[in-house]
Structure formats: structure tokens, C-alpha cells
């Protein structure tokens, strides 16, 4: 209530810029709340609680000390239980004194049981280490972690284990987003795009977080790969929709990624050599914590050198680079500090023809400092300072004329979150996220400045969220988020709610609804992400908003199998996109740069998963529809965006051939993408260049479908040793086994009369070899 009171000083839904100090006061309040544990001790420990006991601590992997997110902690024979947060922290409170057995479970790990005796007023710190199940099983019983069952407790949420990312056959190198694209409800635009199209939303509707820091352009190689190095990643959690109030800023979904903390048991590392890139990582403990450093760099140079001079249109130079690092410092029993950073870039120099040179240079730099603190029984706080910078500096030199662009997004913020297990039935969360984002664009053509703009915006968001376990069968999660941007002075409230009913321990019926706002928009191209530009709301450009409704059932009929069925409907309104019909922005007001549209999407997703045995894997199927509408386009009628897929099926199977060999296969099938079939044509004599223009006459936009997409990938992994220096993995993969030449789009040759249509096709069969040594 205190937060609400602070959020409405003007009794108006529209804040003025003078309100900023209110937000700063709130930020300072949360900060001091974090710093002063005594304050929270008063808040969190009432008189009745003093006669009860509590247990809290961190749950980590025994082998590495890495935190486990989403592990279940319960007191056997009671209704007291929680899941660990992203730091691996848990807290069980208001426990009557007595003898208990604490049970910790997480898919892929052996259950942990320990008897504890709790006395009145006692707070027991119990840090628990879980051992991997596979390490103690015979060769036939394999537990998969494809899509973690525990984290599927919440509707719309999926955890993608790094093992899945590493083992899934992928073009040239393992990729986080390519693996995510296999989940039901998530599609890719093409073989060439790692962009995430989640539940009918475009990639900019997904918030990408790395260690709580926004990543603005998560792609390499013009969008072919995502920027996240699998060696450096600990957790990937995907909120496909209906995400709770603790997240915000996007209309559709959230991909929350955490870097590894680093091995707390021993020094370890990985060296990997692949066709496209090579990776090296090292991690280990030190006296007060752990560290991790991972580097990935493309290794295309030998290929380029061999092709240069023999093949046309080969880049003069081309590389991408990622560096991830993290340092953890255990300041005390209750305080943990971590510093994390990521730096990635793409650098291309491409002489496409005589007197035609393209230079592309873009990337991201992010950093965060996080202070996690156990403030009291059941009360955990996280304070994070983040910085994120996206830069994009293309240069085109053609015919002696130079075009240069400098586009940057600089975002500094502070996040503070409180996680409070008030009682066995209430888990309360509150937090703020405040900062400043600056977007600059400067264009120079032929030595003259043609565009220079800078939008600077303060932003603030705060949320309250409560998970209320009404009874063992019913759980309600409600929340409210408020967001404010100074550019345009917009304040919006976003209510969220989710309800779960458990008629049986193995069945969960769930539903969720919420409103979502987005204050940023991305200018991008599906085929090429090297020129991405972010734009902000401002005067005359109000934030996009949409509502989401979800309902689903999760069922574990037998331990080996799990089934999920989930339906969704979502709206999208006030979608502000750069108007593609604007040829030159000079002299136009900011709001004249956009077209404002609306849309909706709905669908049903089915996920079947086999979790144990020699054969494990999952099949995900989606039936969905997505539509958009913009005034003046397609007669202002709704049309399917290109990425709309009616049917989408992905099957991933792992088969353990022996203790040394594993076979993996992925089959994907999807309805052909939407495209526009030209119906007629005419000719217009262009009086400015004496050419004939060939305008096409079309009917409904994107009313035709390309041939269905399907592809089969297989891979084999051999586990072994590398000269007794460490374990090794040899991966042999074949992408697109039967070389299905899926159509990307059609192009037309107007030199022929009638014009000839030809298909631009996607990837043929591609072999891939990767050798990794873990030392």
C-alpha cells in the first residue's frame, strides 16, 4: 500500500515531469530498505512469528556450486513449500517448532532429504547441494532436462536448460535462440533468422534480459545467430506470455538469461573448435567466491582467405566476438555481490563491387552489479545497477559518395526487488526499475549531416505481486505494475492475475490474464538485423498496449511422460512502427515517422515430453493465428504477418546409444509462410530516369502461402577423454538431412515478359563438426 500511495501523488493517470522526484524518492526508499536490514526485520517479523521457526538458504549444484532456479523445497507431510528464485534462494517461514523432513527436488537431480529440528524462534540457514541424477544412474536410465518440469508450474513459462542448447543440432554452432525456437508457440522467420516470434508477436515484443540487463540487439551474423554463448549461460527462462508483474516493458514475452556464476568447487574450463566459431571459457573458485570468463570468436578468416581472389563477393574481413564475464563475491553469510558483463560485436568490411564498399559495425555492451541480501527470515532482496549500450555504425561508400550512420541506445538503470515469504501461503514481491535511456541517430550523406536526433527519457516502473496459496488446490497470483516514461510523459498501469487449480498432484489447471505496455519500437528487417534502430515513445507517439488471456492444463500421467496444453489470445493496440513509406525523414515531426496499427493473435499449444529412459525428448505442436492492421495498408483490413504459421510442429528426440554415444534428431514442420501473390501489373514510364516502372497489382496482402516448411536434423555426440586432460565431446551433425530446399520468398524478373518468378531458397544440407574439451 505504501508503494501505491507513493505512485499516485497527483491523483492522475498521467504524470507530469515534475513527478520525477517522487520516483526518485521511491527509488531511494527501496535502496535504503535494502541497505538497512533492521528496517526490514521490523517489517518482516511480527510478534506471532517470533514463536515460529524458519528455514532458508541457497540451493546449488553440488558439482559446480551454480545456483538452481526453480527447485522445489517442501517440508514433507505439510503444505509448506516454495520454489527457489533466480539466485537459488529459498525461504520457508512460519513453521511451528518440531521435527521435519526437508525435501528438495529438481528435474535432473537426485532428491535431497534431511531431517531438521526447529525450535521456537529459530531461523535455520540451510544451504543445500543437489547432485546430478545422471551421475548415479545406470546406463539405461537417463533423465532428461529438456523442458524443466518444476519451472512449468507457472503458465506460459519454460526453462531451457543449457544442455538442450548444446546438444540440439544447429547450423554451424549451438545457439540459445535456435533452441528456444523449437518450443511450441515460438517460430522463426527463416533459416537465416534467430529472431524470436513468440505467440504472434514480432521480436521487439520480447524483452531480452541478461543478468537483469536489457540486451537491445541479441544477434550476430546479420541475425543468423544469437549473441549468447552457451558456455557462459546458466539459466534461460522463457515467459511466452502472461508474465507476472515483476516483468514489464514489452507486449508479448520475456527471455530471462543468467550468466554462469562460475564453478565454486574447482577450476574448470571448456575449449571448443567449430566450423564457424571457436569458444573458450574458464571458471573457478577463489577465497570469497567464484569467477567465470567465456570468449567466443568467429573463425572464418581461413575460409575467407581461401576464397578471396577465387570467388566474387567475399568480405574483405568479417568476424564476431563475444566476451562474457562474471565475478562473485560472498561478502558475508547474508550478502552476495556479483559483477557481470557482456561485450559482443560484429565487424564486416565487404567490397561488393568496384567503388562499392559496405562496412558494418554493431554490437552490445552490457554490465551489471548485483547485491543479493538475506534481509531476514523469509525476506530476500536484490539490488542491481545495470548499463546497456547498443551501437550500430554502418558505412556505405558507393561511387565516391559516403553514407554514414551512428545509432546508439544507452540505458543505465537501477533495479531493486524484494522477495518476501510472508507466510506459508503468501509470497509477496515488490520492486522498482528506474533509469535513463538515450537513443541517438545521426546520419551523414556525402559529407553533410542529414539527420541528427536524440531522445532522452527517464523511466520508472514499480510492481507489487502476491502469490496466494489459498488452499493446497488453489493458488492465485495477482500483481500490479506501473510504468512511466518522461518522453511523452506517459504513465500506465498494468494489472496481472493468474489462477491455478490442482485437482490432483499431477494435474494443474491454469489461467492468466494481464495488460502489457511497450514504450519502445524497433526498426528492423526480417532478413537482416544489422541496421536495427530502436525508437521511443514521445509526444504524439503513445506506448503500445495489449491484453493477454491464457488457459492451460499440465498433466504428468506417469513419471516418464508429461503433457501440456495451453491456449492463448492476445491483443495488440497502438503498435507504433516506422512507416515504411517514408522515403526521407528530414523535416518531419517525430510522430509523422510512424504508422499506428493493431493486431491480435490466438492459438493452442500442445507439448508432449518423455523425461526418462533411453529415448527422451519432446514434441511441440502449435495451431495459431496472428493478424495486423494499419490504416491505409491492405485497405486498412487485417492481414497475416509473414511469420504467421497456422501449424507448427517440432519434435526433438535423444537416444542414448551407449554410455559413449548419444544420437539426437530434430524434425520441424510448419505451414508455409504468408506472402502476397501478384495478381496484375501495369507499366509507368518514369520521367526522371526514362525507365519503365512495373508496379504490381495485388489483392489481399499475404493471402497466399509458400510451400510447407520441413526439415530434419540429426546429430551424434561421442563422449570421451582428451589425453587424460579432461572430458571431451565430439559432435557430428547433419542439418537438413534430405536437403529440403524450403522457400524463403519469391522474386520476380521483369526483364522477361511476362515476368519470371523464381524462389529464393533457404539452407541446403549442411554438415557440422564441433569438438569440445572440458578441463
Amino acid at each position, binding site marked *: 500500500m505504501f508503494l501505491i500511495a507513493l505512485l499516485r501523488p497527483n491523483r492522475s493517470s498521467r504524470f507530469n515531469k515534475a513527478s520525477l522526484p517522487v520516483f526518485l524518492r521511491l527509488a531511494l526508499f527501496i535502496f535504503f530498505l535494502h541497505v538497512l536490514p533492521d528496517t526490514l526485520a521490523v517489517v518482516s517479523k511480527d510478534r506471532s512469528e517470533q514463536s515460529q521457526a524458519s528455514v532458508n538458504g541457497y540451493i546449488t549444484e553440488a558439482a559446480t556450486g551454480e545456483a538452481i532456479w526453480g527447485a522445489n523445497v517442501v517440508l514433507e507431510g505439510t503444505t509448506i513449500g516454495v520454489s527457489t528464485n533466480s539466485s537459488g534462494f529459498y525461504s520457508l517461514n512460519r513453521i511451528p517448532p518440531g521435527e521435519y523432513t526437508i525435501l528438495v527436488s529438481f528435474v535432473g537431480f537426485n532428491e535431497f532429504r534431511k531431517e531438521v529440528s526447529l525450535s521456537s524462534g529459530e531461523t535455520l540457514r540451510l544451504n543445500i547441494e543437489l547432485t546430478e541424477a545422471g551421475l548415479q544412474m545406470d546406463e539405461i536410465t537417463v533423465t532428461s532436462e529438456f523442458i524443466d518440469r518444476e519451472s512449468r508450474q507457472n503458465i506460459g513459462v519454460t526453462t531451457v536448460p543449457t544442455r538442450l542448447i548444446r546438444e540440439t543440432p544447429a547450423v554451424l554452432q549451438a545457439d540459445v535462440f535456435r533452441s528456444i525456437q523449437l518450443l511450441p508457440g515460438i517460430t522463426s522467420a527463416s533459416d537465416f533468422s534467430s529472431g524470436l516470434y513468440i505467440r504472434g508477436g514480432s521480436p521487439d515484443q520480447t524483452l531480452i534480459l541478461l543478468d537483469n540487463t536489457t540486451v537491445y540487439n541479441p544477434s550476430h551474423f546479420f541475425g543468423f545467430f544469437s549473441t549468447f554463448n552457451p558456455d557462459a549461460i546458466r539459466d534461460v527462462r522463457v515467459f511466452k506470455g502472461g508474465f507476472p508483474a515483476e516483468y514489464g516493458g514489452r507486449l508479448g514475452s520475456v527471455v530471462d538469461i543468467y550468466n554462469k556464476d562460475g564453478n565454486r568447487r574447482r577450476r574448470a574450463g571448456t575449449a571448443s573448435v567449430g566450423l564457424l566459431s571457436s569458444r573458450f571459457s574458464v571458471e573457478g573458485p577463489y577465497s570469497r567466491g567464484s569467477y567465470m570468463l567465456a570468449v567466443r570468436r568467429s573463425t572464418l578468416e581461413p575460409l575467407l582467405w581461401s576464397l578471396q581472389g577465387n570467388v566474387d563477393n567475399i568480405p574483405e574481413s568479417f568476424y564476431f566476438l563475444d566476451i562474457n564475464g562474471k565475478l562473485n563475491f560472498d561478502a558475508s553469510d547474508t550478502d552476495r555481490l556479483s559483477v557481470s558483463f557482456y561485450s559482443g560485436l560484429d565487424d564486416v568490411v565487404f567490397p561488393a563491387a568496384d567503388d562499392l564498399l559496405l562496412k558494418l559495425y554493431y554490437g552490445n555492451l552490457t554490465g551489471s552489479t548485483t547485491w543479493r541480501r538475506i534481509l531476514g527470515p523469509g525476506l530476500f532482496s536484490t539490488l542491481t545497477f545495470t548499463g546497456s549500450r547498443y551501437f550500430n555504425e554502418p558505412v556505405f561508400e558507393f561511387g565516391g559518395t559516403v553514407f554514414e550512420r551512428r545509432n546508439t541506445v544507452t540505458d543505465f538503470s537501477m533495479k531493486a526487488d524484494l522477495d518476501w515469504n510472508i507466510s506459508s501461503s503468501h509470497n509477496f514481491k515488490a520492486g522498482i526499475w528506474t533509469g535513463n535511456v538515450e537513443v541517438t541517430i545521426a546520419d551523414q550523406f556525402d559529407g553533410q549531416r542529414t539527420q541528427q536526433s536524440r531522445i532522452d527519457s527517464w523511466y520508472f516502473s514499480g510492481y507489487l505481486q502476491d502469490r496466494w496459496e489459498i488452499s493446497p488446490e488453489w493458488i492465485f497470483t495477482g500483481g500490479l505494475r506501473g510504468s512511466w516514461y518522461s518522453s511523452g510523459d506517459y504513465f500506465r498501469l498494468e494489472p496481472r492475475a493468474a489462477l491455478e487449480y490442482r485437482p*490432483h498432484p499431477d494435474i494443474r489447471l491454469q489461467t492468466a490474464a494481464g495488460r502489457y505496455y511497450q514504450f519502445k519500437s524497433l526498426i528492423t528487417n526480417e532478413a537482416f538485423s544489422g541496421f536495427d534502430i530502436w525508437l521511443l515513445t514521445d509526444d504524439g507517439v503513445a506506448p503500445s498496449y495489449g491484453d493477454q488471456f491464457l488457459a492451460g492444463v499440465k498433466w504428468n500421467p506417469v513419471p516418464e511422460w508429461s503433457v501440456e496444453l495451453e491456449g492463448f489470445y492476445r491483443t495488440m493496440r497502438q503498435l507504433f512502427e516506422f512507416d515504411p*513509406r517514408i*522515403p*526521407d525523414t528530414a523535416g518531419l515531426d517525430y510522430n509523422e515517422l510512424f504508422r499506428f496499427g493493431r493486431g491480435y493473435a490466438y492459438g493452442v499449444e500442445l507439448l508432449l515430453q518423455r523425461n526418462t529412459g533411453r529415448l527422451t525428448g519432446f514434441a511441440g505442436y502449435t495451431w495459431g493465428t496472428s493478424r495486423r492492421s494499419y490504416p491505409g495498408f491492405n485497405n486498412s483490413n487485417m492481414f497475416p504477418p509473414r511469420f504467421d504459421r497456422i501449424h507448427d510442429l517440432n519434435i526433438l528426440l535423444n537416444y542414448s546409444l551407449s554410455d559413449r554415444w548419444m544420437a539426437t534428431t530434430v524434425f520441424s514442420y510448419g505451414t508455409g509462410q504468408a506472402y502476397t501473390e501478384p495478381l496484375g501489373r501495369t507499366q509507368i514510364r518514369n520521367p*526522371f530516369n526514362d525507365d519503365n516502372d512495373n*508496379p504490381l*497489382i495485388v489483392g489481399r496482402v499475404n*493471402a497466399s502461402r509458400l510451400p510447407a516448411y520441413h526439415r530434419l536434423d540429426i546429430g551424434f555426440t561421442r563422449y570421451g577423454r582428451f589425453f587424460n586432460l579432461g572430458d571431451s565431446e565430439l559432435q557430428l551433425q547433419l542439418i537438413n538431412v534430405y536437403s529440403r530446399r524450403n522457400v524463403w520468398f519469391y522474386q520476380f524478373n521483369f526483364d522477361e515478359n511476362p515476368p519470371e518468378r523464381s524462389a529464393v531458397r533457404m539452407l541446403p544440407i549442411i554438415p557440422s563438426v564441433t569438438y569440445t574439451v572440458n578441463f
Partner: protein
Amino acid sequence: MKTIALCRNTLALTLFSFIFLLTSGCDPYRQDSYEEQLVIYGMLTAGEPFSPIRLTRTVPFSEAYSEEAAALRNMHVRVIEMDEDGEFIRTIQYQESERDPGVYFPRSRSSIVQGRFRYRAEVRQVEAAELLLSAQTIVPGSFELVETNGSTFIYQGPEQYEATYTTSFYPGRQNYFIISTRALNPELGMTPFYDSIAEEPDEFITVSSPIINEQNYELNPDGTITLRLPWISVSHFGISAISVFAIDTNWYDYQRSLGVQLGGSTVSPGQIENLLWNVEGGIGVFGSRAGVRSEVTILSPPIP
């Protein structure tokens, strides 16, 4: 046990509904079919005689296009001239060319198009009152060349051709320009960039810029603007005619939407949208422009 049975029934019902959706689910958004449309094309230039108007029909995409076969013949075509305020001034009657079917010329060749005036083209069937096609344009205001910084330049040398112009006028918006360069001595050869991308020797005789907003140029204190010719506008060595045109809204809409149809920078490949046609009863462009022409000689750089 009752709860489990209820849940199983619910699940069965849900799965059944799901399978029903799969089997019956069809996309109601279907491709429509081709419909023929009438096309008008004309481009008036301020200070010049009235240009011809071409009338055609669209053809199905899969058929060969021939201007002669697509020609719309035996039409009654006229252009109504109005002043800046829209007051009627006169009517210019057109007649069909005997040599070029579908091409209509003004009966009086001495009439001159006036900058800032409005012109409305109307097409009817002969002997019929019903209006088939109509379109209106506002001609950009005429402007003049004030001065240039020279007439001969070395290709990609230290100095570029610059010309200073009085400003044009268009009601309700800034001026939009297109720069067109025509090589008058194409036999002297192409500049290296165009030479590397040309497939035919007579390509790129005339090249034009994309649409350029007036706000791209700095306004001089005396109210004039100075345009610098980028080297990319020079396709051939020798003398080139440099024409700077202010364009009307009809051509602006046509060209900017054509750019999107050809694969604009943010549109997904394969997503094609119709052009912006400011024509009633059909499609096409009845546009106008005002321009200034100058000449410049571009020399090949000396071989080091």
C-alpha cells in the same frame, strides 16, 4: 477418485476440442482474384507545354505486357485548369494519337502548364457522360537556378558541383525533390561504380535520386538553397545535364509506395502492398513537377 475422473473427462474434452480445431481449422483469409483496372499516366511540367496522357488497362501478372494491347482507346480526355485558389480557368481538350494507341495529346500544343496551378484530368467514354477516371494535381511552384560553383569538375576530385536555387512552393508541406542526371556524352564511358554493375553498355544514361526532402538542405540567408551533387549521381564522364525537380504529391505517393513494393528497408520479403494511387475510378499517376536544368562536365581523374 471422482476428481481424477472429472479431470480425465475434462482433459478428454479439451483434447477432442483441440483435435477438432486441427481437423476443421482453415484459414478464412483467402487469396482474391485478379480484377482489371484502368490506368492513367501523365506528367505535367511547369513552364512547358501539356504532356500527353496515356490510358491503359492492367493485365494479369502471368500475361505478357504490351502497351499497344493494353491501350485504352477511343476515350474522351480533357484537363481542367484551375488557379491556386481552385477557380476554373479553362479546359484543355485531348485527342488520341493515330500512331500510338492509348496516347492522348492536347489539341492545342501552345498551352503552357503554370506552376502552383491545379489541373484535373477527366476520362470519359466518347458519347457518354459517365466519368471513368479522374485525377488532380497541384503543380509545384517554379523556381530558378541562381548560380553554380563551376562547370567542369574532376570525378571524385576535391570539389563537387554545387548549384544554388530559389525555392519552390507546395501548399501544406515542404518541397520534395528528385535530382535527375542525363549523360550527354555516354560514349566517353561510365564511371567505375556504374561500370561494375551495368549489364548493358547503354544502361544508366539517365539516373535519378530517391526522393529528397527540402529540409535536408540548409536554407541560405537570402532564402535560396544550395544543392551539392553527390558523385553517385554521375554515371558517365563528359557533359551531363543536371535537372532538379520539385514533385507534386501524386508522384511523391507513387514513388515512395513503389519503393516499398520493391522491397523497402523494413518490409518482410514477399509482403507486397498496393501503391498509393491518387486516381478516382482506377489507378495510375497524373503528376506534375517543376524543374531547373543545368549542365556540368565531369572529367576522368588523371592516371597517377
